[in-house]
């Protein structure tokens, strides 16, 4: 394969004049993380709520939760991205829709991307939360009620603290997924890491340098997330309750 590598390109100034290409990519990583973290907050909040509601004995609440999960799980992420970016502003009242459409870049792409990724991931979080709660022995819930706790207190003090510790490893992989999935936001114009690698390739014609640099940055990010989450797992572990290293991942 005859490709002439030219790594110095990373230190050359990008056309926008904000600094070197390497700096340009690092700023992209900043946007990737800013998108992923904001979306993760939404995903955890909604996911925990829906996942918990789906384990309650309330039939209609469970059905509504199932509907939410099925809708957002069965539409591809990029299509959801387009719905949030192109369709939702049109369906809102005119003034609000216009205000959204006139948000200055990059916020005009950032806000829909965060909402989209947050809700897309909340479905997966909800599934994990539900699985975590269902994996606890039934006796835990009964013991809570027998101790005189209300249903809500049982969830708050007995079930959820255990369930969240159990699902920490799968949640880690969901967090890594959200970082990777944020790259889809480039289709609605958000210049995050992958989008910037693509832009760098178009400006500089250095295809493989740009993509290799982005790949290495993603790998390093993953490494840091894995190490951080392992530390968190150790910190919140209840001695004797869950084996070191967390429960084995449910395979798929």
């Amino acid at each position, binding site marked *: 394969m005859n490709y002439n590598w030219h790594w110095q390109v990373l230190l050359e100034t990008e056309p926008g004049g904000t600094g070197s290409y390497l700096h340009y990519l690092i700023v992209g990583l900043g946007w990737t993380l800013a998108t992923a973290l904001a979306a993760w907050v939404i995903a955890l909040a909604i996911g925990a709520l829906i996942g918990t509601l789906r384990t309650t004995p309330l039939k209609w609440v469970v059905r509504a939760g199932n509907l939410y999960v099925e809708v957002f799980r*069965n539409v591809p992420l990029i299509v959801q991205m387009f719905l949030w970016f192109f369709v939702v502003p049109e*369906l809102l009242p005119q003034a609000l829709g216009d205000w959204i459409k006139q948000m200055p870049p990059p916020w005009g792409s950032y806000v829909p991307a965060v909402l989209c990724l947050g809700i897309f991931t909340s479905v997966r979080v909800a599934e994990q939360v539900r699985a975590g709660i269902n994996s606890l022995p039934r006796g835990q819930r009964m013991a809570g009620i027998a101790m005189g706790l209300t249903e809500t207190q049982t969830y708050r003090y007995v079930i959820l603290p255990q369930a969240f510790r159990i699902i920490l490893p799968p949640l880690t992989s969901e967090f890594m997924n959200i970082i990777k999935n944020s790259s889809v936001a480039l289709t609605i114009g958000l210049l995050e890491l992958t989008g910037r690698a693509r832009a760098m390739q178009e400006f500089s014609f250095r295809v493989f340098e740009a993509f290799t640099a982005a790949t290495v940055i993603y790998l390093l990010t993953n490494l840091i997330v894995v190490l951080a989450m392992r530390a968190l797992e150790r910190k919140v572990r209840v001695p004797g309750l869950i084996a070191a290293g967390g429960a084995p991942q449910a395979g*798929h």
Partner: protein
Amino acid sequence: MSGFDFDVIQRSWVYLFREGMSFTLTLTALAMTGGIVFGTLLAMMRLSSMKPASMLAGAYVNLMRSIPLVLVIFWFFFLVPYIGAWVIGAKEPIKVGAFWSAAITFTLFEAAYYCEIMRAGIQSIPRGQVWSGYALGLDYWQTMARIVLPQAFRNMLPVLLTQTIILFQDTSLVYVISATDFLGAAAKVANRDYRLVEMYSFVAVVYFVVSYGLSTLIRRLQERIAIIR
């Protein structure tokens, strides 16, 4: 919703399905077949006692699972012409259409995910089965092909199919290399007629119906398979 223009869907649906959906389905079928075959080989490598083989497969799977699919699509879109030139010994990068580029990308990318499923499947078979295979005088490949893999496939069938639904949805990302898959075809009509709301809503509904229908079928299958075991 008052201004919803159903007419544009009526005008374009034949095109959407004939050009777009056939692209999407062909790509899904090719990548599924290739991905499962390559993924099974990777899983066998990962579980092999030969250190270099298992390390190589492990590195490949972890690399593919650590970077975004969009980036992988870009990588192969530019890389495949060089690899093609290297394979046939040409001086210049060869021209590869969006379809074949996407087919190679998705096969290689999904193989990493199918590999993890098949690895779990192979590990779910008791080791005694392998030993009895050897005791009967079968070699490694015969034991794998006749004893281990058929059972592993059967145990993992629902998961493999669920992964295929994810693959079906993921193929819509070929939008980033301007391929005319179902979403790409709809985007073309949407931009030409300035009917983005109608077209993207229609696309979402079609993807939902197909994915939900298939996952319901898989759930039924799972119930049937789970009884016999």
